[in-house]
């Protein structure tokens, strides 16, 4: 499989604090890779680096064969990387459908003058955006259907907001989807649903997925490969079993001596 995303010795330092330290990792086309690690390990910073929120202080990020280092976030999104947020960042006062439609901006074209004149091309594009949004929302079955489309996003429940964030991210037509703790704050049944959904996203949407998750049941259920971070350094990589039994991972989560006492 071809490598879709590759990080080459990527470092990120805020003043004297190094959050990500010479990280090498890669994600292959069609893979689901999980990133785990204790709080403050640098997982979300990793996402921010890949999506261009931060520019790495060292190293290079290559997406689909081209360096994306130093590009603005919207350019990176237009190249095919979309993400969700750990702390939800929906457009709360816009309707559910509009949230998803807005994300189609990057791959649509109608400018100011065509909008003012309502040219046939602009109207067709607008219909396509609407159809795309409805298709993306329909992916979540009845959860985000029908009457909810015209409701403001703030009226949604927490779990539905997480689903809407995923729908919005997929509306940018990405190749790589970054999910930041998709199961956070969900009940066991919803977590189960999300686990199935992530596999479904790959099968039906054809997305390559990089996911940060704390819930080990989810990680076990979805991952082709797991990468463990601690203090910005990759401490383990491999299948879920390999990583879960790695002494360094256990140490990072439970502290030194945890293995001996057991």
């Amino acid at each position, binding site marked *: 499989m071809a490598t879709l995303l590759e990080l080459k010795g990527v470092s990120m330092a805020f003043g004297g604090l190094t959050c990500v330290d010479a990280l090498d990792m890669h994600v292959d086309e069609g893979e689901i890779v999980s990133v785990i690690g204790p709080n403050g390990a640098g997982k979300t910073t990793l996402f921010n680096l890949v999506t261009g*929120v931060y520019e790495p202080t060292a190293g290079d990020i290559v997406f689909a064969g081209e360096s994306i280092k130093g590009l603005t976030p919207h350019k990176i999104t237009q190249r095919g990387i979309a993400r969700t947020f750990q702390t939800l960042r929906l457009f709360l006062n816009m309707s559910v459908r509009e949230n998803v439609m807005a994300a189609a901006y990057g791959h649509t074209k109608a400018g100011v003058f065509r909008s003012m004149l309502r040219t046939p091309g*602009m109207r067709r594009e607008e219909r396509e955006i609407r159809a795309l949004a409805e298709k993306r929302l329909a992916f979540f079955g009845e959860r985000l259907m029908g009457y909810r489309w015209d409701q403001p996003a703030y009226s949604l429940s927490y779990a539905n907001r997480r689903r809407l964030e995923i729908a919005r991210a997929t509306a940018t037509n990405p190749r790589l989807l970054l999910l930041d703790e998709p199961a956070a704050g969900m009940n066991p049944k919803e977590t189960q649903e999300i686990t199935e959904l992530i596999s479904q996203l790959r099968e039906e949407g054809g997305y390559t997925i990089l996911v940060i998750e704390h819930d080990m049941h989810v990680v076990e259920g979805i991952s082709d490969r797991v990468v463990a971070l601690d203090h910005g350094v990759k401490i383990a990589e491999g299948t879920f079993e390999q990583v879960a039994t790695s002494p360094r991972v256990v140490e990072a989560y439970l502290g030194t001596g945890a293995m001996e006492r057991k």
Partner: protein
Amino acid sequence: MSEAQGPRIGEDEWVARSGENIERHRLLRLADRVPGWARLLLFVAAVAAIPLITDDGYINVVVFDTLIFCLLAIGLNVVVGWGGLLDLGYIAFFGVGAYTYAILSSEQFGLHVSSFAVLAISVVVGALLGLLVGLPSWRLSGDYLAIVTLFVYQIFISLATNGNDLFGFDLTGGVNGIANLDPFDLFGRELVVAKQGIFNSNYVYLALGIFVVVFVALYLVNHSRIGRAWRALREDELAAELMGMPTDWLKLLAFAFGAAVAALTGSLFASLKVGVFPETFSLTLLITVYAMLILGGVGSQTGAVLGAVVVYVFLEALRDPDVSGWVFYVTILLALLLVVRPRWMVAGVLAATVAFGFVVHAIAGAIDETWTTSAGPDADSVTRFLDAWVVIPATPGDARAIAYIGLIALVLFCTTVKGVWRWLALVPTLYLAAFVWENIMSADPDVTRFVLLGALLVSVMVIRPSGILGERRVEIV
């Protein structure tokens, strides 16, 4: 709902009902049930009818100026309402448009460019300046952006005021401005401002035409991917950027749109006026336009128009002391009806205030006859009642200042005490308000109308915090 059944999809009550609630809310707002184009048509028909009904020059100028303010408000709405960018330099663009017209259509440089060409030039100049002024928005947001744009406004004022000697070159005519502007020429037909003392109502139709074009154009832009992106930008800039929207460009675009509309409006405004002077573009004007937008509902284009009409007509009506008196007393009455619970207490408070007034009037009259005035026999009943009720000293002197301060103190007292004390305090407060009105405020309409505008804003904001037609917005949930 028991766990065994599992969650019943789509039946959680609050969400299911929210649609219903919105619907019920809409029933109360008749405006929402009329389609947008019909509302616009209604507005256009109403405005277009005014010059047909009356050829009173004053009324027609007020209609023209109201349309100018409508344009300013919908332009500001693009930047502030849709883009979410606090732009305090907005009036500078209005000024730039007015000066563009003045420079291109007067003897200042001997230029007499065709008026529609001037409008086009204004739009381009305004949009380019908007792009330039929008640049700080890449790095600044909120209050910081507001301060920087306020400086842009100051730069404009300084340039306009000192523009009679820009390195020895007279661009703006300085404090005296540029006078004797050409009238608007409509494809070679000059719209002479006044024909034999009668206002040329074609100006109203010209302004109305431009208003409709701008309104529809902005509406169409808002209902496109650009408008959606603006709203997304206002909601969450980082999320918008990460969802593929070029936020820096969108901010500039919002600034450019607002500035272009303001500059176009400025040119149109200048075409009717004798001249263009720096002091026209005062901070008061900026605040008035903001007041219109906030009153109508930030983010709502219809609201902006409504706010502009309400505020401007309100301000103009208050120039006449007879009208302003009515507005004052009716406002107080409405405020009482809205605030006082139970409602029957309003009658009690009013009766007590009337009785209190007669007692005070009688005592004051008994002590010194010059403290009260009596209306002539030909005065109407309201005036006679007021003169028999409110103490109006022939030589008020310090009493006015004391009463003003006393009124403020009493109002504050009313807001701090509770229960029966509040009712008791309300009676002298109302009476003192009438005293202050009759002795000070009605005599000085230029100040009073802004005080009353403030009162109107406060009352509307209490009842509808997001403006008359503004959508309720949720910040953090």
